[in-house]
């Protein structure tokens, strides 16, 4: 049974002085205009991932005193086990495992961070694919004593499969290899060689000790040979602005807004989230699947009309012509339309116990459009450890990844996932159980 310490609520304690220089400084840091970096972490059971996350949370002051004290009480041994900060459910503590993806939040003066913490062992593929799906950056932990292991390769591969634009390899437990530059360089070179085979556009390797904090927030005196950034510095400064597709205008219609009130009698707007590209009033646009063209009369944002809409803004688009547009339609530029197709070639990560097999019927949710489809063909199953393609495979089991062809009952408006993460992705839903059973990334046919 945990009892919180309620210093702030104790009658004798002083209230926070909201006009003090400390408060002013805190407000300045807290309210500075920042952007969000989404991070996915992956690691094996004992490579210190929880400790690293605990360290990031604690050093960035995302941990409150009562949480810290609860962990301090629960720690066995002489130091505070920061790993316990990320242990969630009682069921997990009892079994010493991590069940599922957990989300953590911390901020520095430059950025706020949303961290998807995924367990490295059971259900690793399903969980890591989930965590990496929204990530700008993935951190793969490697134990310096063990070097690259099968799981490290797998984590790097999954991050590249999901097109996470930035990969950080944190070589942890450097204290246990006497801060050896040689060990670090060996791991760095091996990982770089492996990453070159994958589509990893940006790889950074950092020597750290999560337990002691070396090179996490401050440069370590133990690694004078390391001239790169600390982990936090890298997370704060990694350039993500150019990761998005601002070229191909794609606006999936999510909801039709018709107030039918006296004040807005003729208002008809198409609400949605900009998937990619930039939309402006006056732009000539095409509506799919009808193919009709019109122009954008105006765009309404959360605070009224806007001059531009770009991802991931949630806006409402008004068109000059009164067309029949509904949810699942897509607005794009006439000279730059996605491919309308019923044939979907994709790498699919399967997430259900019951395997995926050819001839199976399944629902596909792509942007705001849901269609039925049939599994036409399984081209191969991919071994995520060796990247070997098994063309003899006849099914995809839980946590398998394979190349699949689906035939949909209606056309979808798609781009390759490598070009457009928003219009190149879909989920698969079992129509009998309603479970989400797979995730797909569209690839060029052939």
């Amino acid at each position, binding site marked *: 049974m945990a009892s919180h310490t309620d210093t702030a609520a104790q009658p004798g304690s002083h209230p926070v002085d909201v006009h003090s220089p400390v408060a002013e400084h805190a407000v300045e840091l807290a309210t500075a205009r920042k952007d969000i970096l989404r991070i996915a972490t992956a690691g094996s059971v004992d490579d210190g991932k929880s400790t690293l996350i605990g360290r990031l949370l604690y050093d960035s002051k995302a941990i409150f005193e009562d949480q810290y004290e609860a962990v301090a009480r629960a720690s066995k041994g002489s130091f505070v086990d920061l790993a316990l900060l990320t*242990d*969630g459910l009682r069921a997990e503590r009892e079994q010493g495992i991590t069940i599922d993806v957990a989300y953590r939040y911390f901020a520095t003066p430059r950025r706020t961070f949303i961290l998807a913490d995924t367990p490295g062992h059971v259900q690793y593929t399903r969980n890591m694919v989930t965590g990496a799906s929204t990530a700008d950056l993935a951190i793969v932990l490697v134990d310096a004593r063990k070097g690259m292991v099968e799981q490290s390769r797998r984590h790097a591969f999954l991050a590249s499969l999901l097109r996470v634009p930035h990969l950080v390899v944190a070589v942890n437990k450097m204290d246990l290899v006497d801060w050896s530059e040689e060990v670090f360089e060996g791991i760095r070179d091996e990982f770089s060689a492996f990453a070159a085979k994958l589509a990893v556009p940006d790889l950074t390797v950092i020597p750290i000790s999560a337990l002691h904090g070396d090179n996490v927030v401050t440069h370590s005196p133990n690694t004078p040979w390391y001239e790169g950034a600390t982990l936090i510095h890298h997370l704060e400064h990694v350039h993500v602005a150019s990761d998005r597709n601002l070229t191909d205008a794609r606006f999936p219609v999510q909801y039709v807004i018709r107030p039918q*009130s006296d004040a807005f009698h003729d208002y008809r707007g198409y609400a949605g989230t900009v998937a990619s590209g930039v939309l402006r009033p006056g732009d000539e646009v095409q509506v799919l699947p009808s193919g009709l063209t019109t122009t954008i009369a105006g765009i309404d944002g959360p605070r009224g009309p806007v001059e531009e809409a770009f991802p991931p803004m*949630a806006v409402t688009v008004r068109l000059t012509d009164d067309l029949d547009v509904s949810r699942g339609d897509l607005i794009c530029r006439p000279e730059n339309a996605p491919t309308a197709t019923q044939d979907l070639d994709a790498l699919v990560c399967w997430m259900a116990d019951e395997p995926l097999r050819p001839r199976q019927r399944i629902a596909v949710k792509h942007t705001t459009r849901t269609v039925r489809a049939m599994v036409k063909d399984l081209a191969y199953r991919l071994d995520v450890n060796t990247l070997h393609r098994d063309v003899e495979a006849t099914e995809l089991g839980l946590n398998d990844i394979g190349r699949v062809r689906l035939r949909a009952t209606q056309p979808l408006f798609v781009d390759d996932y490598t070009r457009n993460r928003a219009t190149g992705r879909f989920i698969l839903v079992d129509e009998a159980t309603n479970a989400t059973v797979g995730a797909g990334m569209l690839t060029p046919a052939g």
Partner: protein
Amino acid sequence: MSTPDYRLSQLETLEAESIHVVREVAAELERPVLLFSGGKDSIVMLELARKAFAPARIPFPVMHVDTGLNFPDVLEFRDKRVAELGVQLIVASVPDAMAKGLVKEEPNGSRNRIQTPVLLDAVEEHGFTALFGGARRDEDKARAKERVFSFRDEFGQWDPKNQRPELWDLYNGRIHLGESIRVFPLSNWTELDIWQYIARERIAIPPLYLAEEREVVERQGMLYAVNEFIRPREDEQPFRAMVRYRTVGDANLTAAVRSEATTVEEVIAEVAVTRMTERGATRGDDKVSDAAMEDRKKEGYF
């Protein structure tokens, strides 16, 4: 506003993400309802729902699970806000359910736990298939593991070991008859984000959240403002102190904290320097055990 680098701030990003979630539910689920307590998180959630459908009205009702132990300020605020937006308010009443013998008062005076059956009965009565809740993942360990679309069986139960994978922004709201989805559009907001958004958008909040000199009594190391549910006991000396509420729960159990924050900006300053979780500090009903939230969620709690 011109943004030459096509970047959104963290508040704009969170806002966009939440609006996307709210619209997705309205588009895919037949009978949504938004749980509105008059607390700051549900106020922000309601504001995001307004923005999601403007200039049209919010296309679903709001529901308050009324424990009968409300701060009058908050009820007044609730009714005013609902009237301004022209949305339908459904009140699911715990005292009514107690009068009918459906639930029993617990010995500690907390109606937190007995809200759950009242909520579930209202859901069944109205046939709601989606319930928007204002929970944030930074609040609690169990919440940190919950999906934005949280599937619930016919008893409203959450099964943490059997959650639907949630990828990208492709939410799966499919359910069978009797099942429902709890939707948490504020999942990725932190307490500070909420306050900054309230300040930035000039969103009205009940006066309880701001510091004022109030008559209080000290009870088990906490300060409770004297009100119709908290009467000074014989051994207690009421006194006046500058206090405010960090969370708004039942009036008989929610403690106030000493504070000088009389404006939203000052509250932000306070939150920024305070290193206590809001629930840990002031909610007597969450102090039962570390796993209290996990247990309540499994039973169908928000």
